[in-house]
């Protein structure tokens, strides 16, 4: 199931990849702060840390390593 999920996403991305064309001068909107992938990056660090000390799921995002502080 995991593999199928992954394949599906990959397929989806390939399709998007194939048909996209956003010219450089059309990217003003994408550069707006509200379009940043992490709109509140400082807060996200704290929230992720607390979720990881209160929930068993793997944390999202890049592999960073880190300490515990798991109150």
């Amino acid at each position: 199931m995991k593999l199928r999920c992954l394949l599906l996403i990959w397929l989806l991305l390939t399709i998007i990849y194939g048909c996209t064309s956003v010219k450089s001068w059309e990217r003003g909107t994408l550069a707006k702060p509200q379009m940043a992938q992490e709109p509140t990056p400082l807060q996200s660090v704290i929230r992720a840390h607390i979720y990881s000390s209160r929930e068993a799921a793997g944390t999202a995002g890049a592999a960073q390593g880190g300490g515990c502080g798991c109150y």
Partner: protein
Amino acid sequence: MLRKEAAVAVINGKTRLNSQSRGCSEQISPSSPLLSALTGAALMLPGLLYPAAQAAESDSLDFQYSHYQEGKRQITGLSSDEETGEYKIGGIKNAYNPIEVESQHGHANVSLSDRVKFAFNYTQDTWGGATPVATAPAVFGNNREVYSDAGTIAGASPLLTGQNGGKVLFDSNRKPVAYALPGEPDSGLLSSQQLTHVLASASPETRKQGDFKLTHEWNEAALSLGGGISVEDDYESRFGNIGGRWDLNQKLTTLNLDLSYTNSDTHAVLDHDSLPYLDYSHYRANGQLTKTKDSAQSSILSGGRQDWASHFGITQIINKNALMSADIGYTRSTGYLSNPYKAVSVVFIDPLNQNGNLPPGIIQGKLKPLLEQRPEVRNQWNLGGRYVQFINSLDAALHFDYRFSADDWGIHSHTFEADWVQPLGNGWTLTPRVRYYSQSAADFYTPWLVSEQAYRQQPANTGRNPALPYNPNKLPDHFSSDHRLSGFGALSGALTVSKTFGKAVTLETGFEYYTHQGSFKLGGGGENAFADFDYWLANAAVKVNLDTFVGSSHDQHAQHGEHGHHHHGSHAPAGVMFDHLLPKAGDMMVGYRYMYGSQGGTILNGDVAVNDSAIVNRGCGPNPCFLKPASMNMTMHMLDLMYAPTDWLTLMLMPQFMDMSMNMKRLSGAPNDDVANNNIGNSAGSNIGEHIEHHVQNGHETGGIGDLGMYALFKFFDDGTHHFHATAGLSAPTADINIQLRRNHQVEGGFIHYGMQLGNGTWDFKPSLTYTGQLEEFSWGAQVNATVRLEDKNKSGYALGDIFQAMAWSGYNLTDWLSASVRGVYTTQGSINGRFNGLINQFGPMDYPGSYGGKFWDIGFGLSAAIPSGDLAGNRVSVEWLQPVKDDVNGYQLERDGTLSATWSLAF
């Protein structure tokens, strides 16, 4: 790590700042072929008009404070009916303070060259409060009501083996029961399936983490290398990571690959007062238990773990208004993955030992909590997706995230999150957010266990490979009743408000409420309501974008250059506050001050070093002393926010963040610990002396938000060479001065001593007069300042002594950017007025109000660097070491080692 999930928090360190819309913007007409060509060319340059997906982080300095506060947990137990005396199951008053956490987070990101960026994070958490240690049926009586002297219910006392010393009963259907009347088998049975947590409280402790990342950027790729260390009393973690980014397809597609390795060690002190009630034989047989150095009665549980994590992500721009990303991660953890402070209630039913005075059909068992045993390997996968859509009509963006995670412990989880980022104009942005999380239980999660076998007396805590007191084959291979491994759902809602001032400075604040409930689990079947809890999280942040100062600070610096080293050329040494006004109306300054003070070595009485027997006999007033401080460290982080409404007035706001740690030693020649039970000032009949061992064993740590300073600086005279100004200030009692040590041995810990509380607790008036001067390469200055308490006592019953300080300094510009200074300081402070209005266990001089304050002489040596040009122009960094010359202390106090001050400031 506190009572503590031993899972390493892989912090989501995505710290990309919002990219500013730079370079080309929407106003440029796309119809011009020349412009198109230029834009295309510009895109080849790094840092120009990256869409948010590849946003290169701006040079920035950020500071964040957050407060996490859990709600009180519901606990149940046996209580007696007032009329009949019969037992009933009911809520027990939970008087414990729930977990709260104070966190500070500093982040710096600077460009070392056009292509190389350096990012640094410093994080510090201090927490304390009560958490569950085990779970048991309420009829076992693991929570017992505690009555105050006045006879009212004061709270609950945790009894890990229940209220009958481990003896528990079941009916013929193996349902837990208790006799209706205490100790009377003929009184009938009370039967209940209700489960409850057993709570234990913890004194405050602190974790500190520093980490860095070095990134090299190319036109369409980046490579980063990072690492860090996290240290707390019982857990240390070191980590490294490497990551790459690759932009494809004209930067419409971005690939990320990250790999990290973490190596962590647990060194958990198992309390001597809980050891008799816990079974830890599994870890002793594994060779993981050692004796502590300082205390023969306690053991240390050690364990190492390693985590390898990998992550692959792809971000794709779908059209000019939308982007999406998908990622997959795998983490492998090996080693000691359990939590050393969590136990599982196991009832051992010995079929051969069912005689005695038992009613028909009743079975008896022995309740013995075993330290939890999780598997030593965990493989975890997670898969996530994010979609970001721009909403043109509202200039807003909708973010939607979904994440699936699965591991070989049997935990599957789903996370859904939606954010709406709404700019409101004038630099304001509002971001509401909802999140739903659901997880299934780990295969080995169990609230409690029954095992059909005898539990033999634990063998003595000596020898190699001692036998286990039970047959492990009759127990599951792994077990934990940590409710974080149970099935549950969680719902949270949050709101963030931010305001940007002229692109340079952003203030942000947020609030989140979170509720964890078994019944919220997706598809049902979650844990019962006894494990439910909730929390709120509030945070406030200041973000300074250094990129926006390029140019403006040049101009300002040039302007100052016109009249020599005016103001910015000759700041006072780092340890001096209120040394200058801002030059003109409308100016602003942000700054950061760091102060580290250390005490250690000899105990002084007045200006004379004294030996242990003098302290024992005279250091604690009418009582003997048992302990002395061995070392004490204090760290302060302060923010300087300055604004000049007029040329002659500068306003200043100074929030502070404190943390302190202290170690204590036994005094040779001190009386036995039980003599402390009769100390004058203690409540009679308690065994307070039991706490002495804990003081020696663990040391003390506190930390959190300090008092808030508000100041107004008035310019009196300024002719370019001589400057004279006055400051009037108020210090608001925002710090916690009610910090208590945890209860153990059925005795309250009481207040932690005066010097470890985080602030003054009183409103204080803080006036000062400052004179500064400079001529060519020389500068000099003098200041007198005072702190006058405006109240007789704070809410904890005391007031710190008033302070008067006088100082003079001189500086010389070694080069046009570096100067050196020397400073002399005299300080006098009165002793504490009043005393704590509640229990304080008085074991050493630091617990007595008379051993505070004194007269102090110091000499300071400082360096100060101002960056005159380049990208970082306008930044100033200063350090100063203050060396004690003479101490003349009130009462008995630890000698001072010195104080380090460091400041950074940026005017604009």
